[in-house]
């Protein structure tokens, strides 16, 4: 119930920001998470943790703030942040394609997570003293002892829903926001300022997010990544509400929370139910199905986007470039020490995964938030092929990637019925379903025993990563990864330069015109999803070899979001962008280099990347590689 209430309040904020600016803000819960950290730190120390790098870490407010003082300060902070984010990021992006707005909010999500990491270190929420704000006396309810704060939280959710419903139905403010959301030009004509309403709604939504997570912190576990990902059920609830109805959003948010605990009870009562993540997976399966059966859920806005998608320059030289880069990387593996070798290996594997994003999102414009889910499917399947069917390397990896391709196509067949943000949310839901229902399904993963990844062997030689002492990580494994990356990059360059790539870009530019030219639009999208899932699968098997022990957490949703973010920043429509994304990724070559320059410098990498991503979405949508190509053409 506590979880359901917080999801419900977050969903209200998601609906508000959508109404005000047509944006689904994936950083909504992350912002609340940051303010909640700030709140409890302020209560304990009297110091406010500031959200911007460059400013002082924290400022002293008062010695022993009361709950009231701390709450007012933090809600004001949330409101200011919301207004700032709207003004600097989402207002400039209001004419941008869905992709730019999604990645901008992903950039903010990563920034807030990284910020908490920087300010609170590895201890995270354990550094905080979380004292109940709401009364948590245990009361008797229907024969069970329940802490009172669950009910109070529910009451807060219901009251907020009621107030918003009334305000949006009966006041001029609500009417004006609805008018500006329906048709911005029309609203301006009759003298309304979309900016003022945008700022007000964003400030309000941010305060809701902060309030929800501050109040719920004693109930739900507060941790940077986990709490930020409460956005996933919240967006799902908002989606069912068509990003319009506060009442439905709250109802569905509560239902998701309740379904989760209900299914937990069912699993305890009925031993025959498979031991998988039903309580997380089932609600999302339902949402995925409603989305896909019902078609588009998002209400249309008055004007189509006028800014175009990232350019896709002819990657003629990338084919040559990747051979050179591959050669340099191999020499690096042979002469450099273990830290560098691991950095090169991680960058190489990430680049393979990023190629999968370039194909489906860069070339065909379909936002997929599930690459790591496909990677995980391939990794777990590979281990089964190796252990149970006796497949040797590289056939086990290829078979695993083939399974990922199949799953990718199966997800794509219904998913390509929807577009833009709808598709992004559908793939996000699919990723959660795969994570919960497949990765936690012992029959498929082989349980604890199935998690050990057999090292790859070529012609009887061990090319696995594991080696003794300073030989770890083994250079031979790195070389295998680099060869795979070079082959995959050349294949993607070939696709882009051939008839397939032209058809993909045509579909991205204009689906109606592509169909009129005889292109099977649905077929083109499904083929791109298939190729993308295959590449993600190959990357996933390499990741499995690198980790040596498989765990679902290696393929979690946050990894997919981060991958999309880094690929967009680097240049999402160019194969070279995938290579650069690998270099920039956390744990990759840049991380090692930064730490060599100044120990600990890499701590700022993720926060900087998050901000850079926001800047990329607003200022240079072609990404680093695309912008360079543009400069060279001039």
């Amino acid at each position, binding site marked *: 119930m506590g979880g359901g209430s917080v999801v419900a309040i977050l969903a209200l904020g998601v609906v508000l920001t959508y109404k005000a600016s047509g944006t689904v803000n994936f950083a909504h819960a992350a912002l609340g998470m940051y303010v909640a950290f700030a709140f409890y730190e302020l209560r304990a120390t009297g110091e406010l943790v500031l959200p911007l790098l460059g400013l002082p870490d924290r400022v002293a407010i008062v010695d022993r703030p009361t709950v009231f003082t701390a709450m007012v300060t933090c809600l004001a902070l949330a409101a200011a942040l919301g207004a700032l984010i709207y003004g600097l990021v989402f207002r400039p992006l209001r004419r941008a394609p869905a992709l730019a707005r999604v990645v901008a909010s992903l950039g903010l999500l990563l920034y807030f997570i990284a910020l908490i990491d920087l300010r609170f270190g590895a201890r995270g929420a354990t550094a905080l003293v979380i004292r109940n704000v709401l009364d948590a006396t245990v009361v008797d309810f229907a024969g069970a002892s329940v802490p009172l704060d669950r009910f109070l939280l529910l009451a807060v959710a219901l009251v907020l829903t009621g107030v918003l419903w009334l305000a949006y139905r009966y006041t001029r403010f609500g009417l004006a926001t609805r008018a500006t959301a329906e048709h911005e030009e029309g609203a301006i004509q009759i003298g309304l300022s979309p900016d003022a309403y945008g700022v007000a709604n964003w400030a309000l939504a941010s305060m809701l997010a902060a309030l929800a997570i501050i109040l719920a912190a004693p109930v739900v576990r507060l941790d940077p990544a986990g709490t930020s990902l409460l956005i996933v059920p919240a967006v799902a609830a908002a989606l069912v509400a068509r990003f319009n109805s506060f009442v439905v959003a709250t109802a569905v948010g509560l239902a998701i929370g309740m379904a989760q605990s209900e299914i937990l009870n069912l699993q305890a009562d009925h031993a025959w139910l498979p031991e998988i993540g039903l309580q997380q997976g089932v609600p999302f399966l339902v949402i995925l199905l409603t989305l896909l059966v019902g078609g588009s859920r998002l209400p249309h806005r008055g004007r189509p986007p006028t800014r175009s998608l990232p350019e896709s320059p002819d990657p003629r030289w990338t084919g040559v470039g990747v051979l050179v880069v591959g050669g340099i990387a191999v020499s690096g593996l042979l002469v450099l020490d273990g830290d560098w070798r691991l950095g090169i290996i991680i960058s190489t594997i990430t680049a393979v995964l990023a190629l999968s994003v370039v194909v489906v999102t860069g070339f065909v414009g379909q936002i997929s938030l599930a690459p790591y889910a496909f990677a995980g499917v391939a990794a777990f399947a590979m281990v089964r092929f190796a252990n149970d069917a006796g497949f040797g390397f590289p056939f086990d990896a290829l078979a695993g990637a083939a399974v990922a391709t199949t799953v990718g196509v199966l997800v794509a067949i219904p998913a390509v019925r929807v577009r833009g943000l709808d598709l992004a949310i559908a793939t996000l839901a699919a990723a959660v379903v795969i994570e919960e229902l497949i990765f936690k399904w012992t029959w498929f993963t082989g349980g604890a025993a199935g998690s050990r990844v057999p090292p790859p062997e070529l012609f009887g030689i061990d090319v696995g990563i594991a080696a003794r002492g300073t030989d770890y990580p083994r250079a031979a494994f790195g070389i295998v990864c680099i060869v795979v990356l070079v082959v995959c990059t050349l*294949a993607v360059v070939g696709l882009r330069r051939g008839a*397939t790539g032209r058809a993909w870009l045509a579909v991205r530019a204009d689906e109606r015109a592509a169909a*009129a030219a005889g292109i099977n639009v649905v077929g083109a999208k499904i083929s791109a999803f298939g190729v993308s899932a295959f590449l993600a699968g190959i990357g996933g098997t390499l990741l499995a070899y690198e980790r040596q022990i498989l765990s679902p957490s290696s393929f979690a949703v946050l990894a997919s979001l981060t991958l999309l973010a880094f690929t967009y920043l680097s240049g999402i429509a160019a194969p070279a962008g995938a290579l650069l994304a690998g270099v920039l990724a956390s744990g990759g070559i840049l991380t090692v280099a930064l730490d060599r320059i100044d120990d600990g410098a890499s701590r700022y990498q993720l926060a900087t990347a998050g901000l850079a991503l926001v800047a990329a979405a607003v200022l240079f949508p072609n990404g680093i590689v695309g912008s360079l190509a543009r400069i060279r053409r001039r």
Partner: protein
Amino acid sequence: MTTPLLDVRGLTVRYGGVVALDGVDLEVGAGSLVGLIGPNGAGKTTFIDAVTGFARAAGTVAFEGRSLDTLSPHARARAGLARTFQGGALFEDLSVEDQLRVAAERPGVRDLLTDACKPWRRVRRNERVEQPLELLGLDHCRSTPARELPHGTRRLVGIARALAAAPRLVLLDEPAAGLDPADRARLGDHLRAIVAHGASVLLVDHDVDLVFSVCDVVYVLDFGAVIVHGPPGAVRIHPALVEAYLGTAVGEEP
């Protein structure tokens, strides 16, 4: 009598309660240039949408004696029916040549596998691309991205892309809109050249002079129904045409 290339019978399109097309019958014979004119909102674009599969319609559309009614837009395009769009609807990222290649190639899964194996492929000359480029005089801008083209050229590229699909029939949606008089005159020549190369044309346009000067048969659409059709000479002086465009003259007997 031979079967016409395109044979449309009783085509009806409803948007909600509005009847956009009301039982339209229209024929395009092989090798002919047929015009379709009518005031704004008469249903000309809806007619093209319905024939090419972009709008759900009742009635029958037969092409080369074969029913198209169950086919999706891309399948109709592959059957030999090409069209242009009012705004041009070019693929902004692609060069003029690549735009045409998209229509000429139509890759399948086999092509996907061969493409993946050829990162350094030399782009082979494709006659289906070269012919329209030459016919419409677009050779000079073949490598220009669509977003950098001037308006008049964009119109021609839209037509060239439709021709690159090697269609039996091209449906042109207001190709002359926004062109200057010189470009319009050239467009008339281009249309005759297209027909001379073996394709038929259905021309929808507001430029009544252009339509009457190049077409063999002209249909006039008003409020979703064909009010008159026949050779241009007969249609041009038909009272129904005048009425559709100008309304009933004041003081005229009903």
